[in-house]
């Protein structure tokens, strides 16, 4: 694999949250904690983890939308410039909020085209092409976001990110609102593009089945740290960390084969344990084991 497109070194983010009268008291939320990873050219890196574990925050830091409290971000081996000057694009987790309500689909999609200096006539054609790619009818070009369903907005967001060919494309839950058949087509498209154009992806998702079929390597994030990383096959076949196991064990599946392929989780008090309980349980067993 060639030189890494993205390298994170000891990246951390703590939010200070203010309470009380005029924000006198503050508390820290350590959203991201000492995360390091590298993604090589043409690679698809899948990032999964608990909700609120800091995935979007990492994405935002790479984009330059949030300042890290510590650590460095290297893109193509160099420290990064201002947001917007980075050769990185992103599909936001909230398609609704990331589309300007006062701009039509076509106007939103043309933004990156204009940056590249594509002329008006060309960009109209390109918009039509992009809409087709994400399985939206051409006439949607004139619609405003509030006239779209959730999935349609998400596809517009994807189309917009694909309008240029960035070095790195961050996909934060790109297909969460899509039905599976459209999802399949969009994922195919992304994979093809990735291969043909040598795109690199940071793919954030809760849909582990999807990730299994898309990512080359996978990192599992828990409480702001990467607790496990490896190739997709490794991690899914033999998850080593307790949380990873719990995560994979919880995936809703379509068939009995799949159900059998999921790791089994020890019941604690006769129930499927919460993540904390399980992690604590295993840690205890580990220490008992070492004592024994």
């Amino acid at each position: 694999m060639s030189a890494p497109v993205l390298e994170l070194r000891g990246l951390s983010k703590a939010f200070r949250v203010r309470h009380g009268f005029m924000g006198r008291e503050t508390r820290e939320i350590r959203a991201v904690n000492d995360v390091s990873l590298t993604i090589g050219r043409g690679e698809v890196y899948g990032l999964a983890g608990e909700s609120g574990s800091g995935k979007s925050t990492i994405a935002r830091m790479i984009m330059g939308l949030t300042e890290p409290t510590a650590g460095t971000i290297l893109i193509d081996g160099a420290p990064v410039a201002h947001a917007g000057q980075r050769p990185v694009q992103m599909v936001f987790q909230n398609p609704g909020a990331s589309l300007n309500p006062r701009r039509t689909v076509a106007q939103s999609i043309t933004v990156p085209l204009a940056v590249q200096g594509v002329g008006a006539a060309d960009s109209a054609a390109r918009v039509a092409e992009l809409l087709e790619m994400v399985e939206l009818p051409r006439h949607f070009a004139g619609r405003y976001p509030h006239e779209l369903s959730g999935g349609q907005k998400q596809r517009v967001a994807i189309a917009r990110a694909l309008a240029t060919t960035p070095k790195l494309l961050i996909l934060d839950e790109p297909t969460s609102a899509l039905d599976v058949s459209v999802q399949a087509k969009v994922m195919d498209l992304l994979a093809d593009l990735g291969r043909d154009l040598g795109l690199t992806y940071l793919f954030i998702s809760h849909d582990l089945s999807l990730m299994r079929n898309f990512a080359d390597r996978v990192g599992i994030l828990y409480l702001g740290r990467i607790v496990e990383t490896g190739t997709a096959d490794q991690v899914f076949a033999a998850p080593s960390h307790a949380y990873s196991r719990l995560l994979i064990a919880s995936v809703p599946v379509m068939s009995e084969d799949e159900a059998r392929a999921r790791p089994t989780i020890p019941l604690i008090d006769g129930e499927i344990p919460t993540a904390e309980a399980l992690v604590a349980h295993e840690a205890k067993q580990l220490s008992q084991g070492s004592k024994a």
Partner: protein
Amino acid sequence: MTAPLLSIRGLKVRFTAYGQVNEVLHGVDLDVPARGNVALVGESGSGKSVTMKAIMGLLRTPPAEITGGQILFRGQDLLTMRERERLKLRGTAMSMVFQDPMSSLNPVFTIRDQLATILKYADRRLGRDRSRAQRLARVHEVLAQVRMREPEQVAAAFPIMLSGGMRQRVLIAMALLSEPELLIADEPGTALDVTTQAQILKLLKDLVAERGLALLMITHNLGVVRETADRVYVMNKGTIVESATTGAIFAHPREEYTRDLMAAVPRLTGGHRYGTQGGRA
């Protein structure tokens, strides 16, 4: 068999924009029995959210217009009911989880403020007497129920300070606050990690089993459907194309469309890498 709690008959909805009319629901029929656990699946843009908004009475008219059909709740037609009566049902007898977690929370109030207000007025409509402290306790309780790790702190936060999944759970908590009879959930698990999702689905299932909640869940995740729902409706282009019990539909999908849907689901076991040259059909 008793009459279903919610029964939709021939619902037609159309939108008018710039003088052009566009019918998006062409006669939807759907039943949710009491204690029922019903899933509505279908491709994006097929009209699921519009159906749900029609049930809740949230369609903005104009541009939307309900041109036909009935929505019977406890045998009463919601469409002919007076607005005041209908308001009484909302948030108490029937409740919903919105699809877009970002834009459905008011950005300028804390979570606690928003939840407590809703509870206060639900209490008032139900004639329940609760102190503010009791209401806050209930807010924290429900937040804990949806697996928030630090309910008090989440309650004190503004929406912008929460992750996507946390916001979605806040919306679920909002819907559960005053223990509704009917819960309509529009993709309640999309932004959640599978562990949390599993726990929340279990919570909903338990509510159906123990409290007699009737659940209508809209989702794209057929795995979720398989593991939670009793009955499935498949929607396409504004009509219900197929409906059956969960077991039946997964065993023998009748419609071509349903079969396509199922085939498109990625497998945890892998082997269907994305990309047209990767071997997928």
